[in-house]
């Protein structure tokens, strides 16, 4: 087909693309990720037994805040990185600040604990499974975010894949926090982080292959 013919055909097929599709796609992906992770967490472990009491505690909101901040960072970055030529300075800054804040809290906690209590705090009672559980319930969110990205046009597929993983991992970790009764900041800073970053790493590894357009 000649380029002139192609242009005529493409032009004639023009339909309105409003309201903005990118926002709708990402909202759908985030909703799928959050609901699926919450449903899976409730089905597999149920809410933590002390949930009504925990909701009033600092550590509960520290966990939720950290996980949701990383999810928001991933979402913000996706909204930029799904568009040709865009970077994601705000999303990256937000993610960096969240990690720094939790590392600071963990350092502060370790400083006021005696040395002998460090490892028990860090390991809690579920350190072997925490990261894996987060990874497990974040899967649907990751697929949804990658699907949304494929409807867009990322020109930095590695970063975009990482952002998709970060959003899914953040939502998964937030949902997992409803089921998990660990309280230590050092536990959060290590095992929660590991679970969330695992999907970001997978996204970065798969992005260049899965996000071609």
């Amino acid at each position, binding site marked *: *087909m000649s*380029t*002139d013919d*192609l*242009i*005529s055909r*493409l*032009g*004639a*097929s*023009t*339909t*309105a*693309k*409003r309201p*903005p*599709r*990118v926002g709708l796609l990402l909202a759908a992906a985030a909703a799928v990720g959050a609901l699926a992770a919450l449903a899976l967490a409730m089905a597999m472990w149920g809410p933590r037994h002390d949930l009504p009491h925990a909701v009033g505690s600092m550590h509960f909101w520290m966990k939720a805040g950290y996980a949701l901040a990383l999810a928001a960072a991933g979402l913000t970055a996706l909204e930029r990185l*799904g*568009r*040709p*030529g*865009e970077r994601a300075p705000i999303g990256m800054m937000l993610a960096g600040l969240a990690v720094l804040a939790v590392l600071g809290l963990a350092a502060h906690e370790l400083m006021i604990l005696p040395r002998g209590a460090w490892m028990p705090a860090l390991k809690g009672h579920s350190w072997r499974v925490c990261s894996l559980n987060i990874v497990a319930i974040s899967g649907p969110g990751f697929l949804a975010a990658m699907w949304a990205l494929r409807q*867009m*046009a990322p*020109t930095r597929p590695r970063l975009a894949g990482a952002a998709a993983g970060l959003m899914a991992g953040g939502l998964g970790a937030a949902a997992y926090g409803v089921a998990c009764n660990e309280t230590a900041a050092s536990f959060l800073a290590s095992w929660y982080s590991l679970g969330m970053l695992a999907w970001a790493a997978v996204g970065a590894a798969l992005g260049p292959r899965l996000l*071609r*357009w």
Partner: protein
Amino acid sequence: MSLPLGAIAESPWRWEPERQNREADGQGRGRALTFTPCLPRRRDLSASPAQPRGSAAMSHDGAPPVSLEARLRSLMVQGLDGDAAAQTELLRALGGYLRGYFGRRIGATAEVEDLVQDTLIAVHFKRHTYDPGRPFLNWAYSVARYKLMDHFRRTGGRREAPIETAEALFAVDDIEARDAGQDLARLLATLPPRQRSLLRDVKITGLSIQEAAAKLGMSEGAGKVSIHRAMKAMSRRVGRVDG
């Protein structure tokens, strides 16, 4: 490879022998011509646009010039609202820039046209990823560069396209270059055969006036006069009286 051009220096065009014979128009005038236009407006993206054909009258009315960014962005936004005519005009305008951009980077004509079409398809079907609050030229350039890198990856050649700014895409509009080539061919056709031959030999092929005149059995002086007359005649035809 531009030649010293004497009288033609006052013309807005710099003439260059073409590298690829893509513009051959089959009108039996031997090798086809392309121009590299050297009007300053072509490289100045912010100040004044390359006017689309048909809307040039607007600028003659003294309306303020619209930047290329503003013109293409407005077409893009209209396209997003479902305006098929605006979308077609946008794709046509981008096609010219894309042909020039890819042509300067990979050279081979058939692949250039494939890349142009791939990119236009991407521009069309990924247009919802354009954020109207952001520069359009950068969006379009990023799509083109992505397609170029994709091409390099598939052909296993050079792995990276250099990171440039949007000006790299919008530096030369091949639609206008093609139009200019046709304009020149038409102008040359109005000259008497001997003047046409002289002008082509001297200004395009690059012979000296003496050599070109000798081919026609003329003296160098007669050749000079003849070329001068040809330039004057052409200048009059494009509306300039000061030759």
